[in-house]
């Protein structure tokens, strides 16, 4: 392998990309605008969940209960006149939950009897509905036990002298539960994955469709040199993108902490891009035309993103699928990237994901290169 030849090949790839201004524009957008909207865009916790209450009891206890459904989790919108109106508001998606407090709520509790509260939730928004149910139960349960203790003459003050177990809850690595940390890093990783497969695969098929690949292959260039040059060029572009996102957006704008070594992160990112690009070569080797590449990329891409565990924890998946996540390079890179940024993981902590990623990368590259040779020899 001649280093000069290799450099020239990489340079050719970069020139080719840089002359397509729309590609450059969208790659920059992917690492800035897109990450920005995603990072600040989503509240995964419950915020201002719209709710309505029908209070048939009109007592001090019922009013206290309603008052506890407060910001930032809940936002009381309107008092519907009837249960029908409440259900209609839930139907239309205006409210996430509705609460009905029955007659005799306070007196039942004062006499040591059970009272029942009806919660209506919009099950078509399953994830937030279950969060809302959790918070609602916490609030209602809290009031219930206070009322019980009040009944036997214990006030809130006495509770400091009671055998109560209290919880000191701490959220590690992100104590203020800032969602933009997760959203921003996650989006950057997804963009890296998508482009790391699509860029080299498309570049290879372009040569093939235009027939220029024949020219390259009759030259002294070895086939694997050509493949490696394509991968190297996309690695350069994408690492530039990751640098852009990290230093222009994540750190200065969203104050994402960097608890580990950024050098380690970018080194791992380069390995990740290489791994995914190897997969891109495999994809390209099965295709003859660009439309085929784009569909194949989707088929390969989507499972990699969704099996990565950022959204769906592997331990909640069916067994065979949880095992399949081992094959998703993004799963390992998630552990590495979140580990370095938020957990302060060192190289020693990241041995397993790093090894797995390198093994996958080697397998993918070897597979893609063999396929490629077979087509051209």
């Amino acid at each position, binding site marked *: 392998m001649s280093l000069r030849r290799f450099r020239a090949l990489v340079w050719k790839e970069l020139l080719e990309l840089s002359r397509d201004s729309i590609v450059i524009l969208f790659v920059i957008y992917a690492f800035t605008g897109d990450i920005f909207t995603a990072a600040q*865009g989503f509240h995964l916790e419950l915020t201002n969940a719209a709710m309505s209450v029908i209070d048939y009891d009109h007592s001090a206890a019922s009013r206290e209960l309603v008052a506890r459904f407060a910001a930032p989790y809940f936002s009381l919108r309107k008092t519907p006149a009837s249960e029908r109106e409440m259900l209609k508001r839930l139907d*239309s998606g205006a409210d996430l939950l509705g609460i009905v407090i029955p007659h005799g709520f306070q007196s039942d509790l004062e006499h040591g009897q*059970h*009272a029942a509260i009806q919660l209506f939730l919009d099950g078509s928004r399953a994830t937030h509905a279950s969060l809302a149910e*959790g918070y609602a139960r916490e609030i209602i349960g809290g*009031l219930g036990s206070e009322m019980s203790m009040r009944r*036997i003459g214990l006030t809130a003050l006495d509770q400091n002298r009671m055998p109560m177990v209290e919880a000191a809850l701490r959220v590690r690595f992100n104590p203020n539960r800032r969602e933009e940390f997760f959203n921003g890093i996650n989006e950057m990783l997804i963009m890296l994955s998508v482009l790391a497969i699509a860029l080299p695969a498309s570049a290879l098929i372009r040569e093939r469709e235009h027939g220029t690949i024949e020219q390259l292959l009759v030259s002294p260039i070895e086939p694997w040199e050509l493949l490696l040059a394509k991968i190297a060029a996309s690695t350069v572009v994408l690492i530039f993108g990751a640098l852009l996102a990290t230093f222009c957006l994540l750190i200065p704008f969203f104050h994402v902490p960097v608890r580990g070594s950024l050098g380690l992160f970018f080194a791992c990112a380069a390995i990740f891009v290489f791994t995914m690009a190897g997969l891109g070569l495999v994809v390209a080797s099965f295709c003859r035309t660009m439309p085929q590449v784009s569909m194949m990329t989707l088929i390969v891409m989507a499972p990699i993103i969704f099996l990565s565990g950022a959204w769906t924890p592997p331990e909640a998946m069916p067994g065979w699928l949880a095992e399949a996540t081992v094959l998703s390079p993004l799963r390992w890179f998630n552990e590495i990237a979140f580990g370095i940024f938020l957990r302060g993981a060192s190289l020693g902590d990241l041995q397993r994901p790093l090894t797995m990623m390198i093994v996958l990368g080697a397998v993918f590259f070897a597979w893609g290169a063999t396929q490629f040779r077979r087509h051209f020899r």
Partner: protein
Amino acid sequence: MNFRRVLAIARLETRLLRRDPMIVLRAIGTPLVLMLLFGYGLSLDVEHIPFAVIDYDHSATSRDYIYTFAGNRTFDLVSADASEREVEAMLRRGDIRLAIIVPPQFERTLYHGLPATVQLMVDGVYAFRAEITRGYALAAHERAADDILSARIQERTGHALDLQPIEVRTRYLFNENLRTTNTIVPGLLPMILMMTPAVMMALAIVREKELGSIYNFFSSPATRAEFVIGKLMPYIVIGFTNALFLGLLTVILFGVPFKGSLAIYAAGMLVYVTATAGIGLLVSSFVKSQLGANIVAMIITIVPSALYSGMLIPISSMSPLTRVVAHLFPGMFGNNIVIGTFLKNLPLRAMLADFATLGLFIIVFMAAGIVLTPKRER
């Protein structure tokens, strides 16, 4: 507009598609594979949360407290008696997502009638999981704390004290058992039907530009509108077939109830796939290279179709800016129609706004596509 010419162009494109050896994979295979993978794999249920305990007390009470966590399928106990260093390492490697620290003298403090504090540490790295874990951990803690307190009160006073006198009766509308499958699987339809028609269509025109066959169009009597609409038609047919096929799969394979009107669903999906193929048309008309079309189509469909459609995150939980962005993609409106017909059985007039907006998308995308497609060398 001459409809014979539109049909001729549509026929030409169809024939090209039919002669692609990978057409079955491209047209039906990709949506099917995505549907099966996500349908089975994309469970947002948080179960088997791995956790570890540092128990400084080693008493019956501390074990009872921990058992409340370990005794159901929400939590999986990894280590019941870890050291502080071990727990720290496990958290840093991401092996556990919850750590419980029971203080020394836990049982004795409570026995003397004084409050004791247990530390709960939640791994906050993956925001959504952290939020759920936090909720489950607090609920389990509450149960354990109430049990301990009422047991102590009963020992002292001889009276049983019910600390949970208020019963909460929950009813989930549209989805009685809160099967996440019932919302996630229909939610996949608009997502898949945004990605596949858009990505397929993105290359349709730009490909002719790059390979030179667009000169056939330059020299033909067909107008730009006829060319664009003719090109679009086969992709709409493919998308629509997929909508019906995947809809059927959702009911048969995943057991999601279909409560609404099939006619509204079909009409809605026809409008929706026309709009999403329109995204591809738009990309195809302004991008210069196939490589560019490929990259642009991926960037503007993969992430928005999942994040901005309201499937994973309800629109109401988005920031103002992102809410605006969500309205710029057809995904959200398609999701409203799918959820409206599958789960809610909404009447047509409740979804008119969604239909109208999708119609507007079609007009804008088509107009832009027609204007931007060249009729001569540029």
